[in-house]
């Protein structure tokens, strides 16, 4: 019996606001333990929530970027008792989320795929508990408690660990692109739970699912899903049943284990938050936000290809919005997109920072294109631009690096190279055509790299004919 995997992801994204979602304590990552708390964060009696406008805007922008319907919504209390939640409930959204539906496109092996979303809702993060090995106590830090989150719930439409990983990377790319989160999985600003089940190919009913948790890198997410698909397939092959449970990934062992099932059947007793009125969404404000969305990663990936870039290069340049903006800035100067892409991926992305501005790199590439300098000299010029902050033209003129294209100068240099190396001439004439490179090298050395290589090549061929 051939089985297929059915995977849905619940992704939590921490929104990069200055303050918490319902109170104006700092939402910054880290900080000394319990230094970002206030009476509301600690659920002291008499405190009330006041919603952060920036968190709502960020959530709406995310929803608009993935084609959700932005709806008037309500907050609801989700009840559970755990020391990381001082109120005894988490303020979340239940029946009426801010964003409904939606589609997230993602790239896998250069191919565009997509997964539909069920919803995106807003909620508050919990505090952070630490469990010391061998100790009978846990320690709690409430700095993270109340940091705004968006939970992005996908439909169970992913079919492999690779698809799940690619979808999750697309989410990270998008939230960074929109500037609403740093999407850092190691620091927990992007977190992912996966619902995984298997079923016979062709079956439309869903199998019993396991919920996977505790995966804090893209690699772990993929490995945990891979492991779970194999584990469930094995059970089915042996005629056993998959049990609905939550499983924790153990990255060191490369296996997962079931959480104790005492509270498996969650009964969160959701009810509408009485301390907050409904959030009415103004359609005009939504349209304003939609109009302000930047060109999104996929659209940009396609546009870059229409400029003549390969899908791969377009992917490299759209991995991050800063890179894409930089590329657009270089091309705006009027230089070849292909050349710009090569320079960015080999020279700029291999260094830290953006010390040479896009327009400055454009000026340098233009000097290559109009044959003022060779590509080889251009690399030295770029090093100097990086080190000194000077412009390309200033460096080329200041150091006399202008390419020599005058045949009256190049011809004698070529002739000298030929006359000084009779042995190599004989080899060339004997059929070793690769020897031409040797002569070009000699001429380049004699001209400090300033000779135009194409012209030198041509002149040498004539002299050696």
């Amino acid at each position: 019996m051939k089985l297929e995997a059915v995977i849905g992801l619940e992704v939590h994204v921490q929104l990069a606001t200055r303050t918490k979602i319902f109170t104006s304590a700092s939402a910054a990552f880290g900080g000394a333990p319990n230094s970002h708390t206030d009476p509301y964060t600690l659920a002291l009696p008499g405190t009330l929530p006041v919603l952060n406008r920036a968190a709502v805007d960020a959530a709406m922008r995310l929803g608009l970027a993935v084609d959700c319907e932005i709806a008037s919504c309500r907050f609801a209390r989700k009840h559970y008792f755990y020391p990381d939640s001082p109120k005894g409930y988490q303020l979340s959204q239940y029946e009426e989320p801010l964003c409904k539906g939606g589609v997230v496109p993602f790239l896998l092996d250069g191919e565009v795929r997509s997964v539909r979303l069920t919803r995106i809702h807003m909620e508050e993060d919990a505090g952070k508990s630490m469990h010391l090995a061998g100790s009978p106590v846990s320690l709690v830090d409430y700095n993270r408690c109340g940091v705004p989150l968006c939970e992005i719930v996908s439909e169970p439409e992913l079919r492999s660990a690779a698809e799940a990983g690619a979808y999750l990377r697309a989410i990270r790319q998008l939230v960074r692109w929109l500037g609403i989160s740093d999407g850092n999985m190691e620091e927990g600003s992007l977190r992912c739970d996966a619902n995984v089940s298997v079923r016979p190919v062709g079956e439309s009913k869903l199998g019993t699912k396991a919920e996977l948790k505790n995966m804090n890198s893209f690699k772990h997410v993929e490995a945990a899903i891979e492991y779970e698909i194999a584990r469930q397939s094995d059970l089915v092959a042996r005629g056993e049943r998959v049990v609905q449970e939550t499983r924790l990934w153990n990255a060191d062992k490369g296996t997962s284990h079931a959480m104790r099932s005492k509270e498996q059947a969650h009964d969160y007793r959701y009810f509408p938050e009485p301390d907050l009125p409904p959030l009415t969404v103004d359609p005009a404000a939504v349209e304003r936000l939609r109009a302000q969305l930047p060109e999104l990663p996929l659209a940009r990936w396609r546009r870059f290809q229409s400029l003549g870039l390969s899908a791969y290069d377009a992917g490299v340049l759209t991995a991050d919005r800063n890179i894409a903006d930089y590329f657009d800035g270089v091309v705006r100067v009027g230089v070849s997109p292909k050349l710009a892409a090569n320079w960015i991926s080999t020279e700029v992305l291999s260094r830290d920072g953006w010390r040479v501005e896009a327009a400055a790199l454009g000026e340098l590439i233009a000097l290559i294109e109009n044959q003022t300098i060779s590509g080889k000299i251009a690399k030295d010029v770029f090093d100097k631009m990086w080190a000194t902050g000077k412009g390309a033209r200033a460096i080329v003129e200041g150091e006399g690096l202008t390419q020599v294209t005058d045949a009256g100068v190049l011809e004698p240099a070529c002739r000298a190279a030929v006359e000084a190396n009779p042995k190599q001439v004989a080899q060339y004439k004997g059929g070793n055509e690769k020897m031409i490179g040797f002569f070009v090298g000699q001429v380049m050395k004699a001209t400090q790299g300033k000779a135009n290589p194409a012209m030198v090549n041509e002149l040498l061929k004539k002299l050696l004919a």
Partner: protein
Amino acid sequence: MSKITSDEVRQTATLARLELSDGEVHRLTRELDAILGYMESLASLDVSGVEPTTHAVPLDMPLRDDVLEALEPHLPVDLALLDAPKRHDAFFEVPKIIEVTE
């Protein structure tokens, strides 16, 4: 017919971490039953022409600007921990809370 059983009351109490004596369970079952009875009389009204209300107060959600208050936005750590049953350095200390089976 009663609207709620004493078992449902016990279950709800467990979820809410309330410890109830048998006497309290019986009293609450009777009281909740009466409350649910009132609900039923509401359900018998014809509200087909009435716009649904999501909240009792006709208010728009007040929104707050995302600014850290300049003056003491945070509780000093010692004050924050003042009511903690136990503290460990700057942390709240609680009984171990992760449960897993290997």
